[in-house]
């Protein structure tokens, strides 16, 4: 299904030779509200299922991405945990992008979760919040967190997924 009409496809895939991948990338713009992690989880689960990812592999990535989106909302945009019913804690957007890349020992799913909020050093996060990063790191083959004045981006690459498309 070639993306003939959509304007926002192939955000991260443009460095590769367009191999007519049967693999539409995942693109989501989430508002900085507490319903967003749940929306991200559903979308990632559906997307990975469509790519024949294993149930265990899906569980791990859903856990990791949910925590990364949560960190963006909580730490990037400073939305408080008890503001569930309020329409919007912050006008900011959390962008979630995913793509599947080929590899000899099994495909990988790569995700970026980006916000334009304030940078917060993960090491400076107090108390039980540390569980979030523990989960993100444990659920991926590689995790990179980069940040600055313009926001924070978390990149994560899955463990080997299914070999066949």
């Amino acid at each position, binding site marked *: 299904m070639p993306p003939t009409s959509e304007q926002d496809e192939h955000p991260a895939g443009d460095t590769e030779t367009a191999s007519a991948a049967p693999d539409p990338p995942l693109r989501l713009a989430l508002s900085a509200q*507490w*319903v967003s*992690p*749940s929306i991200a*989880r559903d979308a990632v689960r559906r997307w990975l299922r469509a790519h024949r990812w294993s*149930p*265990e592999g899906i*569980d*791990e990535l*859903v*856990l990791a991405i*949910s*925590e990364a989106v*949560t960190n963006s*909302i*909580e730490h990037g945009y400073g939305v408080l*945990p*008890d503001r*569930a*019913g309020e329409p919007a804690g912050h006008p900011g957007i959390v962008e979630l992008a995913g793509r599947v890349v080929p590899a000899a020992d099994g495909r990988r799913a790569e995700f970026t979760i980006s916000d334009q909020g304030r940078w917060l050093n993960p090491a400076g996060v107090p*108390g*039980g*919040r540390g*569980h*979030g990063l*523990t*989960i993100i790191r*444990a*659920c991926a083959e590689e995790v990179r967190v980069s940040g600055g004045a313009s926001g924070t981006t978390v990149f994560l690459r899955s463990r080997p997924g299914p070999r066949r498309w």
Partner: protein
Amino acid sequence: MDGSQLLQVATERNGSAVIVRVEGEVDMNTVTAFSGALTQACDLVTAPMRVVADLTGVTFLSSAGLTALLEIHSRCRHQGTPLSVEVTHPTVRRALEITGVDQILDLRRH
């Protein structure tokens, strides 16, 4: 959307236990209700009664939920009322294992 739609909590007394049954997803959207129900159960029990967190209907448990469980755990410990936690869903079990919280809680896997 209101967080309460994504989580259902019911508390009941059964003999010497206060059972908190939770269904849905525990994350930042719902953790206040989750934590509140468990705290209330803690308030209801006196030793040697116990608290059972029946999370068999929970399909997702985030780090915020793990932190809430650990807080209730230490509170129950402090007042001498055992807490046990029942889980079934693989995603929930995985979150507990990855963080080592499964080693701290009295976990019953179904």
